[in-house]
């Protein structure tokens, strides 16, 4: 009996969610990183307001490094705890990849929401167009989760943990990161947002997912 991909994705997401909920320490580490960084910056600024471009860069840096504290382990942890073999044995490649990607996306969305609230409170960001900010945040988070999940899988296969992951992550994520910072800067500055940049980001997100999906099959069924 062949499991449908969507059912498999749902199962993997549910498993990640349940296991994640029962390990509050991992969540605490991610959220505390964001809270500590933004509190420090806010205290250091002593009420001064950053340029919109700097605010945008800071927003994405905090989101990026907060997410990196856990994302690189999403496959390595399976390997270390001995669950990688049964997952490979019973799970279809695409269901596992997209189930884990969906969970990363969910985790990053929650994290982005948390960081955004802190950001607006602590760093005195002016009034912004919420739909435009949400659109950029969603496109950026999609790229981060897609690239992060796929590279985490690849680096697990290479038998090397976070070192290789971080090295590979930078060039892969830059085409998402640079327009995300640019667009967020425009939104924070109250300027209109060029939608061609957003389209480019979404196109790159799509390419990341399609490319990751094709390559992941080789990784998953590789002898």
């Amino acid at each position: 009996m062949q499991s449908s991909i969507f059912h498999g994705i749902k199962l993997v997401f549910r498993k990640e969610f349940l296991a994640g909920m029962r390990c509050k320490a991992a969540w605490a580490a991610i959220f505390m990183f964001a809270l500590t960084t933004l509190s420090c910056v806010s205290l250091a600024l002593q009420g001064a307001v950053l340029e919109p471009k700097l605010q945008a860069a800071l927003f994405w840096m905090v989101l990026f490094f907060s997410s990196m504290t856990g994302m690189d382990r999403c496959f390595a942890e399976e390997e270390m705890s001995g669950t990688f073999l049964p997952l490979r044995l019973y799970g279809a490649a695409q269901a596992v990849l997209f189930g884990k990607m969906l969970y990363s996306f969910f985790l990053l969305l929650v994290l982005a929401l948390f960081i955004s609230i802190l950001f607006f409170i602590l760093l005195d960001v002016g009034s912004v167009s919420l739909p435009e900010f949400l659109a950029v945040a969603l496109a950026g988070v999609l790229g981060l989760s897609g690239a992060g999940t796929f590279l985490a899988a690849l680096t697990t296969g290479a038998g090397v943990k976070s070192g290789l992951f971080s090295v590979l992550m930078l060039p892969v994520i830059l085409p998402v990161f640079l327009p995300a910072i640019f667009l967020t800067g425009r939104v924070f500055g109250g300027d209109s947002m060029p939608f061609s940049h957003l389209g480019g980001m979404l196109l790159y997100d799509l390419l990341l997912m399609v490319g990751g999906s094709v390559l992941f099959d080789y990784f998953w069924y590789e002898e």
Partner: protein
Amino acid sequence: MMTISFDSVGLSFGAQRLFDSLHATLPSGQITVVTGQNGSGKSTFLQLAAKFIAPDTGKVVAAEDGSILQKDAFRSRLAMVTPEWNLYARLTAEENLRFFLGLRGMELSAEEIRVLWERVELKWEDTRIPLAGKLSTGMRQRVKLAVLLAVEADVWILDEPCANLDASGWEIVLRAARQAASEGRLILWATNDPREEAAADAVIHLPWN
């Protein structure tokens, strides 16, 4: 009829030549036991059979009625119990079972699951309340057996499946393997226990190089 064939298989780990021109045919409908000293390559033999690793030379072919099975098709017909695989420590035994079955597109009713736990002699409350990480090693082994029994795979690859099990657990594994072989499944079993070797229809002894 399903077979796994080793054709002139050679494999080295560093300087150690583990297998050299190894030939073997493992047919379905019988229990094939692999024996050998520690370090002789029993677990590696099983990994080759499961196509999780590739040989340096020669080939391992899984076929059904003469048609070669591709890796993904073969894997979907395979179930394993090995010391290398663990349950998710932060899920309960039943959540683990439902997760692995779900990945194979299977869903059991509460009654079917109750029968399964009875078959591996696990108490219902031990499978639903404590997380798997809190269960004893023997109980976790029984949960792995429950997964094995439930997925109804055509190929069983068992690496020391009775490790950490008491006498009743040993009986469960042996009975299940015999029944599975009589139903036409391919059973490959690595062990050094003479009692398990005695239950085999065929024995492959791996020399220590």
